[in-house]
């Protein structure tokens, strides 16, 4: 019989900030989205204040001052390293693990019953706390959907104990009673829209969805939701997705710190997004056959003139050379750019991605397409940037001061990934 665990870090971003900064110990901490816009993570203290997820930072300035809320910009370098460490610890508990998001992983626990799954869950929780210093909750169930729900129960203290909730040891009546208390919207895969439709159909709790007629759900909603129903009943339909397939599309897109009006600024931004995307492309040993560029004005300000063009350019030959991709992206950008608009965001998408080994040369393949010198150069650039930091070596097209870069005014140091960012300990 299958058994899954979902391990989820509590308040992950905020916890990472607290881990290295003792001054934050009991303070309410929030982490803000790109450009320091919205609250994307909250420490337990902030949750207790009733500040909701996603609220714009400027809207809660009064509360922030009153309660002394400390805000950080998203420190992706730190969160990514801590996330990798957690995954590494989890890999010691099961050979089958699916990294579901930066702070959540599914583990296949089949065969690890020993003294019971809950105590195994406690062991996982203890090891991550000891070794990494982060608190996790563990939900255990016969299916991924149940494991996710058990995790919700562990986190909200609805069932289980000490951050671990094991559905596999709960009897039928207890589960039914528990499921009657949980809203259907808490189920994995049931989004706002589906929740509203389910409510209309009289299905408000997890129990009601579990006991609904599967065929009816399939015909009135979807096969996907029918599968959810079966999973809630303990029939495992979703397997672990162990290997992350190579990306079929690579996108790099950001909003700017301020509106951009000039083509030259947009060109710098697009060139730098291409550089980022191309680096990812090379990391998976692939080539892109098509480049798409889009720019947009601020859709949240309908009172200003709006313009959201995108353009797709098929390349003569698939490439992973930043110079070639930049050349075509900039040509595309000049085609869609119109003066007089305030641009808020730009992005590039690399598409038609093929493995390097399967490169198809065009009939009139230019020499550049299969130029070994190009490969060597890109390899060298990537190595230098890995060693000296992203963007240490870049095309002049990306600009020097990059004033359009997103604001990250309250960025904490990269405590674990840069020598300059290490946290000093005092010997006093």
């Amino acid at each position, binding site marked *: 019989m299958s058994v899954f665990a979902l391990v989820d870090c509590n308040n992950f971003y905020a916890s990472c900030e607290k881990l290295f900064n003792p001054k934050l110990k009991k303070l309410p901490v929030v982490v803000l989205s790109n450009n320091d816009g919205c609250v994307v993570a909250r420490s337990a203290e902030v949750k207790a204040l009733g500040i909701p997820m996603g609220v714009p930072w400027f809207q809660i300035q009064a509360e922030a001052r009153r309660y002394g809320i400390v805000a950080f910009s998203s420190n992706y370098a730190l969160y990514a390293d801590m996330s990798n*460490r957690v995954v590494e610890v989890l890999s010691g508990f099961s050979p089958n693990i699916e990294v579901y998001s930066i702070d959540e992983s599914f583990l296949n626990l089949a065969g690890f019953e020993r003294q019971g799954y809950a105590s195994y869950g406690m062991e996982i929780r203890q090891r991550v706390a000891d070794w990494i210093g982060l608190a996790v909750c563990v939900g255990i169930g016969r299916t991924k959907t149940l494991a996710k729900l058990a995790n919700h129960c562990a986190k909200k203290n609805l069932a289980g104990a000490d951050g671990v909730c094991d559905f596999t040891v709960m009897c039928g009546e207890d589960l039914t009673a528990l499921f009657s208390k949980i809203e259907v919207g808490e189920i994995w895969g049931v989004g706002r829209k589906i929740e509203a439709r389910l409510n209309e159909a009289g299905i408000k709790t997890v129990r009601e969805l579990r006991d609904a007629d599967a065929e009816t759900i399939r015909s009135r909603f979807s096969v996907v939701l029918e599968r959810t129903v079966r999973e809630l009943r303990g029939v495992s339909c979703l397997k672990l997705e162990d290997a992350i397939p190579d990306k079929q599309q690579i996108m790099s897109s950001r909003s700017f710190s301020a509106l951009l009006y000039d083509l030259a600024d947009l060109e710098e931004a697009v060139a730098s997004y291409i550089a980022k995307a191309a680096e990812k492309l090379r990391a998976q040993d692939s080539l892109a056959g098509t480049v798409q560029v889009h720019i947009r004005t601020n859709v949240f300000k309908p009172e200003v003139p709006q313009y959201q063009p995108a353009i797709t350019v098929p390349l003569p030959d698939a490439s992973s050379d930043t110079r070639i991709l930049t050349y075509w992206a900039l040509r595309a950008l000049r085609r869609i750019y119109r003066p007089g608009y305030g641009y808020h965001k730009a992005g590039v998408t690399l598409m038609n991605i093929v493995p390097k080994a399967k490169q198809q040369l065009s009939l009139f393949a230019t020499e550049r397409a299969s130029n070994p010198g190009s490969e060597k150069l890109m390899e060298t650039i990537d190595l230098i940037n890995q060693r000296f930091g992203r963007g240490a070596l870049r095309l002049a097209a990306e600009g020097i001061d990059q004033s359009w870069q997103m604001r990250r005014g309250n960025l904490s140091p990269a405590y674990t990934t840069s020598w300059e960012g290490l946290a000093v300990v005092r010997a006093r």
Partner: protein
Amino acid sequence: MKTVMTIVPFSSKLLLMFEPPTGLLVPLLDAPHLALPLDAVKVSAGFPSPAADYEDKRLDINEYLIRNPVSTFFFPVQGESMQGAEIFDGDILVVDRSIRARHGHVVVAFVNGERLVKRLYRRAGRVALMAENPSYPALEVEEGMEVEIWGVVVGKFKRLVA
């Protein structure tokens, strides 16, 4: 294009590690490895090298300092209070969280909002964080104090030439 291979000592599955809290031997995650180009060593068709059978892998300082990479973090030191433990201003500490702190360990501790390096004293009901320099007094840990032992200092390093 050079083909790169990863040299892992024995099989990564065979590397076992003694895990202090449980006393179990567990597989060592992230075995130290070194990537070398396959064609770095030229093979000649002439007389075979008499050293060929004795080739060892080059020493890796990570391997020496770090037993458990996943739980290891670095902290630079500022101050003179730990000189007796041969920890000097500017040294970078290697801190392993997977080791349970015991009496006598040098530890990184968070005390009242500060990151400190101290020697842990825990004997006969007395818990204190000791300096290793006569001009710094011991810090007695009393009820209600906010003290968190963050990790155990297992080593240190410093580069002398820029």
